[in-house]
């Protein structure tokens, strides 16, 4: 049903936070099974875009469709199909990891056997065994991130929205998450993934979207972006800096060292 249309479609999205422009007439389509990376400097609109895609903020104008469903008109249906991890997720710190996941599973409508099996497997895969009886408040940033990721994939979503999902993760867990995103994509899960780590973006994502001031600055595969920047064979960092017009890095470093 969704194969012919984009799994995620943002059309002319504009979002104002008071006088501040968060998104500026942004249009982006992500096909089913694709892993899309969102790149951009701080404040470029990555988190705002992801929040718009799950319906946590209402765009000032424009529309968002996920799996053909209008996010504003059918928020419940969209949230049933989507898993979301925000940047620096604030979880229910007074719950243990097991209780938190149990809560998510109940709300997502998982049956007893299914949730028991899924929670047990996720806790084992992300190395949280022995810690699941402790309240989340005592967890490290990385452990909280793991719990948030578990909560997002617990119900086998069709679309995953991940805002800096590798923040604070140890190398093993980061690798697990990267492999997981790949495996989910093979199963047809669409992922929109924001990150500052360009190597990871290049390694994981099928296509990249570079945002600047709430607009799409460039879009394509890593190779297409290199060609666009006129830097074939260069690292993605150089491509990113050139496309975003970042100048004078050396001057800034010199000023900091003074």
């Amino acid at each position, binding site marked *: 049903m969704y194969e012919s249309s984009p799994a995620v479609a943002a059309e002319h999205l504009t979002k104002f*936070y008071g006088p501040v422009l968060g998104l500026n007439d942004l249009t982006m389509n992500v096909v089913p099974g694709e892993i899309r990376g969102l790149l951009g400097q701080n404040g470029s609109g990555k988190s705002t875009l992801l*929040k718009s895609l*799950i*319906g*946590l*903020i*209402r765009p000032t104008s424009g529309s968002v469709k996920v799996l053909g469903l209008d996010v*504003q008109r059918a*928020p*419940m*249906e969209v*949230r*049933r199909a*989507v898993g*979301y991890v*925000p940047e620096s*997720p*604030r*979880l*229910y*710190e*007074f*719950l*243990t990891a*097991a*209780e938190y*996941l*149990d*809560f*998510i*599973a*109940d*709300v*997502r*409508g998982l049956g*007893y056997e299914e*949730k*028991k099996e899924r*929670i047990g497997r996720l806790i084992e895969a992300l190395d949280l065994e022995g810690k*699941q*009886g*402790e*309240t*989340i*408040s*005592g*967890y490290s940033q990385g452990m909280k991130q793991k719990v948030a990721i578990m909560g997002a994939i617990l119900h086998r979503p069709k679309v995953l929205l991940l805002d800096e999902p590798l923040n604070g993760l140890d190398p093993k867990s980061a690798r697990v998450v990267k492999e997981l995103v790949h495996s989910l994509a093979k199963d047809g899960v669409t992922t929109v993934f924001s990150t500052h780590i360009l190597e990871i973006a290049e390694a994981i994502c099928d296509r990249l979207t570079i945002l600047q001031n709430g607009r799409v600055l460039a879009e394509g595969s890593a190779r297409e972006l290199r060609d666009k920047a006129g830097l074939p064979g260069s690292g993605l960092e150089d491509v990113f800096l050139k496309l975003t017009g970042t100048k004078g890095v050396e001057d800034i470093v010199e000023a900091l060292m003074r």
Partner: protein
Amino acid sequence: MRLHVLLKFAKILMISRMRSTRRSFVTNSLTNRPILIALIGVVLFVGGLVAGEATVSFFASAGASSSSISQIVLTIYGGLPIFVIGFFFTMGLLWELNASSESESTDAINWLPISPSEYVFASTLSTSYTYSPLVAAAIGYALPIGVLTGNGLAFLLLVAISLVATFIGSVGVEILRSLLARASSAFSKVGGRVMVVSRVLGVVLILLFTQLLFSGFLIVRVISTLVGDIAATIAVPIFWPTLSITSLLASNLLASAIFSLLSLGFFLVLAYVALSLRARFWVTTPPSLHFSGSSSVSGVSRLRKLGLSTTSIALVRREIRSATRRKEVVRLMAIPIILPVMITFPVIFSPAPSSGSSPPSQISPILLVGPLLFGVGLGALFLGMTSIGQEGKRLWNIGSLPIGASTIVKSKIMFTSLIGMIGLILGLALTVAIFHLSILDAFTFTGIGLAVILAESSLGLAVGSRYPDFSDGPRPRFVTITGSILGSVLGIILMILISGPFIVFLIARLLLGIPFSLYLSLLFSGLVGLLFSWIGYKTSIGPVEGILREIPN
């Protein structure tokens, strides 16, 4: 001890108190100025002067005898020091109870190079100065009373003793703070549900005690005891400031001097104890609790037989865990239990109980049920008002899940009502046991109480969803000041509307002699309550939906 660090740190603590209690309507630039507190103090001092002068004029015009006036001066002057100690201790205590564990464990004090003595004295100074306007008002009130009744010397002593009392109360909080930190640490190591239940009970008992202390009744009783039998109370240090004043008023200069010195000594001992405890026992409260057996997932709840969905049950379960495990929320859950006690207490003991001529059983139980319902209703209202704001920065969790606004509203009302019902049932059980309320009446009032709780919870949620305060500060409030005021006013109006049929019953029965049925009036009251519950529920859905669609940053 570095004096400049002490003063700077005291200022930071004071600003922190001001901003987290007046944040929503006072700008930061204004709260950055400690002089603001002094200005408030001056205004209250002048207000106190006027009130004190009015008090003297009133007694003079009423033709009070000199012995009566002496008794009044004794009560006011003797009462002030003990009141000041209690006030400062309570304010510090409430400040502690309001603190979120999350912010406490990341408090700068845990890693900044501030010595125990600098911390204790800075915090004592900060508590004393922050709430000093009350002392200014009290001294302003006492000044004309002292001067116009020829007790100028006693007034001068009162000023000095009030300062000592202020520091006694403030430094007492420092002792408590260290002990609570130690206890929290020990409890957290034990972990589990026993710890959670102990903490809830502890908070409820502490709040109950402090509320009783401020009912006024207790202070009057203490003063009567002191005046009546000094020998029995001189061994209690907390009474020494009061005894220094009452001795002077009784023209016993030597005793007054001794008690004044003892008061000062008491403060110094407390300061030493606070320093020692801070240095020896201070440990950061561990941020996490351990629950054995909580790694297993929950089974099918029996509540589903009542028609509740799995989502509703999951939400209510989450609310209960939040209310019992988050220190800053535990105090809110205690409100529906404490308020009935606060409100019924004066009814039971006013006028002050005599030595047995009027046993409690002679009080009409019906008279107790009214205040009890009022207290439970207000408790449910406040709990409802804070229930949305306490989601704080965690709102994205429910925002990104397929949960409808109506389900959230229902579960919040259900949880608030559940806690309110605990207060109601406890109160009614006590009324049945002590004041012989009939079982039938108890059941009837349980029904009415449920309607009151549902109506006030729904109203609280309707207000709280419109005026939520999501800021996760060190002392979160969860509802804006505007919301609190509006909610309180509407809550009282709603209570009057629910009481309407009962008032009609009283007028018909007592004034007009019409045989109007009590039970019929209560039935109507219940129906009014249910009607407003439905209105509150319906009017909460829209704002909650709005919040879910535009999660605050």
